[in-house]
């Protein structure tokens, strides 16, 4: 096992590691989609995960969140080994995610959906003897999250009728309702017209500094603007990683990723 160069930086910063993977590997038959992935996300960091289509970025998030089981390796959340835990246990320990393709409750409105997520976190979602309307703290918390993401005025609208950009924000709202320590954002502005994607990223930028973020994003302007550190994934393996300036100057990255983007 080689020691990645950034370990030294992190040690100097003295920050605790919020999420780490150790030798994480996954293959579907002969197709290897994650090869010996070693990631260390320091607490409060904003990391971007980039790479060409099919590099295994979403797969990596699926592995971290327990939606896929790895063939080998470990996932550590705040030092605790969570590799054997199911997705909902990981969420309860503070690891949340959003989905690249909207994975929302189409028939619920935004208020109901976020209230449900808050109720789950508070452990009151199994209660059937009192109306939702009488759980005022749960509702207030849900509405606060919605307001923070500027969804307050459309929270009574049924999800499937919300404008697409608002649905993307609701993705984030649902994740925030779980009060995550680490949030994995899978292309938060995917499908949103470029002129509106800024709104989504402003919302991401406005998240608490205590929250550790890892986001997948294709728009390099956005990546360079919001990420403090970039991991480049190619064919299921970490190609390189480092601060934005280093990645931007890396000719290898230009070749495998930036160059390709112009054609694709």
């Amino acid at each position, binding site marked *: 096992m080689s020691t990645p160069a950034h370990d030294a930086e992190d040690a100097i910063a003295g920050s605790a590691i919020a999420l780490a993977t150790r030798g994480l590997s996954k293959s579907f038959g002969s197709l290897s989609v994650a090869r010996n992935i070693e990631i260390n996300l320091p607490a409060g960091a904003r990391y971007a995960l980039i790479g060409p289509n099919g590099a295994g970025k979403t797969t990596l998030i699926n592995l971290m*969140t*327990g*939606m896929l089981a790895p063939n080998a390796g470990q996932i550590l959340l705040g030092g605790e080994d969570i590799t054997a835990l*199911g*997705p*909902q246990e990981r*969420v*309860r320990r503070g690891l*949340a*995610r959003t*989905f690249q393709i909207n*994975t*929302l*409750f*189409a*028939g*619920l*409105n935004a*208020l*109901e*959906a976020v*209230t*449900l*997520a808050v*109720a*789950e*976190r508070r452990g*009151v*979602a*199994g*209660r*059937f*003897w*009192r*109306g*939702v*309307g*009488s*759980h*005022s703290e*749960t*509702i*207030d918390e*849900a*509405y606060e999250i919605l307001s923070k993401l500027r969804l307050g*005025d459309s*929270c*009574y*609208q*049924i999800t499937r009728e919300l404008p697409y950009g608002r649905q993307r924000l609701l993705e984030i709202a*649902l*994740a925030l*309702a*779980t009060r995550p320590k680490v949030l994995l954002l899978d292309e938060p502005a995917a499908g949103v017209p470029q002129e509106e994607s800024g709104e989504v990223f402003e919302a991401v930028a406005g998240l608490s500094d205590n929250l550790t973020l890892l986001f997948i994003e294709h728009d390099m302007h956005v990546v360079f603007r919001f990420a403090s550190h970039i991991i480049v994934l190619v064919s299921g393996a970490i190609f390189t990683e480092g601060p934005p300036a280093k990645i931007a100057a890396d000719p290898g990255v230009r070749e495998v990723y930036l160059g390709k983007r112009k054609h694709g």
Partner: protein
Amino acid sequence: MALATATMTPQGYLQAQSRWHPLEIVFWLATLLPFMLFPDYLSLASQIAITALFALSLDIILGYAGLVSLGHAAFFGIGAYTAGLISKFGWGEPLTGLVLAAAAAGLVGFAVSFIIARFRHFTLIMITLGLGLLAFEAANRAHWLTGGSDGLQGISMWPVFGLFKFDLYGYTAYTYSLIVLFIVFLGTRRLINSPFGLALRGIRENWVRMPAIGADSRAHIRKAFTIAAAIAGLAGAVLAQTTENVSLESISFQRSADVLVMLVLGGAGRLYGGLIGAVIFMVARDQFSGIAPQYWYFWIGVLLVTFVMILPNGILGG
């Protein structure tokens, strides 16, 4: 739907969701009409109330949690046989019978729910169908206990509260069925408007998202299925008690299919869908079997196809 909500607080909005609508009050007042208008049909009215109760129980899992069951009659039958046997072996007090029947059906439902909660879609349809057939054959086979195809004979109920005897005209029967239906309805109404009801709708709307908000969907499903099974058992018990007879039909696939038809007809996931579906189905069955005793299912088929083509989401589906 979201009109005039601008001035409403989020809590006020959610509270308003569970407020009684005037039409609901009209509906429940209308359930008293048979006493005045159709005193000769009180036995039928009682059967409708029982069937509505059964449909209500299926609505919790099918309409709200989105889980299709083709074997729900198993729990109806367990409740019916439990209530019948308790009476046959000498304890004819109706309310104890109801409680024990609901407990028996709920217990079996709880055990089965560990299987149910692991599967979805076609697999779940096959599993519930299989479990339903299993229950039917078990009841058929246990002739010594259930009377098999001859039905369970020798049930004799004591008067309700020691006062109201089950009469030939079905006066007590309908009153009894209606009260049980109404009380369970109140509980179910509360349940679907609770955080748990919201979680069930979450499971229906997006099964994949639930774990991502930290929800244990399987635990929710186990709970919902157990409650639904207990209510189905209650419905079966009321039928056994009011008719003083349990036939194999009460645990048959036909009953599972019928209740599904009623719920789809009335509108699943709307609380009143099963109730309205039960009224239409049972009245239609009564009328059609008067016209053509042998072929009345033909007309039920016509009714179903027509309704579903015109109103794909059921009568209350909008």
